[in-house]
């Protein structure tokens, strides 16, 4: 899969929005009048952030073989740690050369994000790494397949229409996440993340395989997979806390 135009567009849009967000905030840093001998007190806001994956949502419109929705959320636990999770549903039809199948199901991922970025004053951006544990429950329908015959002496085999349904399938995996989140306007955040997944449990159907797992995405020969998400979320502040070490701020100001 090459980067699709829409994907590329969304990707550039994130970068532009992020840059805009950061530029807009830049002048703020110089405005607070700092009295001599006193250090600015950094206040961190804590709360819940909820949003949706726009990549999955937009793809549902232009890709006739895909329907998907993912709700993302996190809760700021400490200065750098966030409890994070995703809840989603996917319905994907794959039409490969030799196989055509449909996978649909629901997934849930839970874990944490760790913010690596040192914010200035009231900035609330994130450059983070994290981990998730994902669980997916799904069903598959094998629509059609063809027989691989290296010696088709009696002629090429026609595609076999199967329509076989496999219910009660499941998978579990671990995800390593790396991503960025930037505040664009008050309490609105835009971000994207990349994920590398590794299957730990996979309940396969008999005489077929889980070639696509909702939440995990396409599977490969081994147990690894990859994912991407582009989210827009809203932050609901719950309480504020003064930072214990305000001395960090002036050190950064060079």
């Amino acid at each position, binding site marked *: *899969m*090459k*980067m699709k135009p829409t994907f590329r567009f969304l*990707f550039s849009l994130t*970068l532009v929005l992020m840059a805009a967000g950061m530029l807009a905030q830049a002048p703020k840093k110089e405005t607070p009048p700092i009295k001599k001998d006193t250090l600015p007190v950094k206040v961190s806001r804590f709360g819940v952030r909820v949003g949706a994956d726009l990549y999955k949502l937009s793809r549902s419109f232009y890709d006739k073989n895909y329907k998907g929705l993912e709700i993302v959320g996190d809760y700021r636990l400490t200065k750098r740690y966030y409890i994070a999770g995703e809840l989603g549903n996917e319905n994907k039809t794959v039409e*490969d*050369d*030799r*196989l055509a199948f449909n996978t649909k199901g629901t997934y849930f991922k839970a874990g944490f994000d760790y913010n*690596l*970025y040192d914010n200035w004053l009231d900035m609330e951006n994130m*450059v983070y790494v994290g981990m998730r544990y994902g669980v997916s429950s799904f069903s598959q329908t094998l629509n059609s*397949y*063809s*027989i*691989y*015959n*290296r*010696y*088709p*002496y*009696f*002629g090429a*085999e*026609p595609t*076999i229409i199967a329509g076989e349904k496999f219910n009660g399938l499941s998978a579990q995996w671990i995800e390593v996440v*790396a*991503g*960025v989140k930037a505040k664009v306007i008050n309490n609105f955040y835009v971000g994207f993340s*990349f994920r590398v997944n590794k299957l730990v449990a996979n309940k396969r159907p008999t*005489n*077929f*395989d889980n*070639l696509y797992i909702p939440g995990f995405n396409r599977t*490969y*020969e081994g147990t690894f997979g*990859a994912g*991407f998400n582009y989210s827009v979320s809203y932050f609901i502040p719950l309480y504020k806390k003064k930072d214990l070490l305000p001395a960090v701020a002036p050190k950064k100001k060079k």
Partner: protein
Amino acid sequence: MKKLVLLLIAFAWTSSSCEKDDICDANTVTTPRLVIDFYDVTNPTVKKTVTNLAIVGEGLTEGILFNGVSQIKVPLNPGADISQYHFILNYQNTNTELIDEDEMKFSYTRKNIYVSRACGFKTLFALNATNPVEQTDSPTAEGLWMKTITVTQPNITNENETHLSISF
């Protein structure tokens, strides 16, 4: 931060460009052919090579020619429960008296087994317990050239073992 973003972009590009693993590997065991070993009828433990043996599928014009080998691999029809062939020994020999043709009808059951995303499915065959091979002398009655036919492995799952032993 800039460095990390660049790293992420680089990662995205590399992971999106190396994905085409959708070619069925030549070493993968897919639909197997029927493996036949030929033996000397006068000395049943000694393998015997065939001379210009043409096998032509029923209703087909183009055949498969074997010469100087004691083992042949016969493609079975994965679309039907029988495969019919004309086994013609000394095919197109100038001395027409040497040409001997027997008709072979293989009867079996089929099972489609999942292989992989790239290969799709394969068909495995199991020769019927009763009348797995029917041999008739046609179109002219010059006598059967294959004297004995023994099923050594009725389950045709790969091409590494012999399924039929024929002596002539």
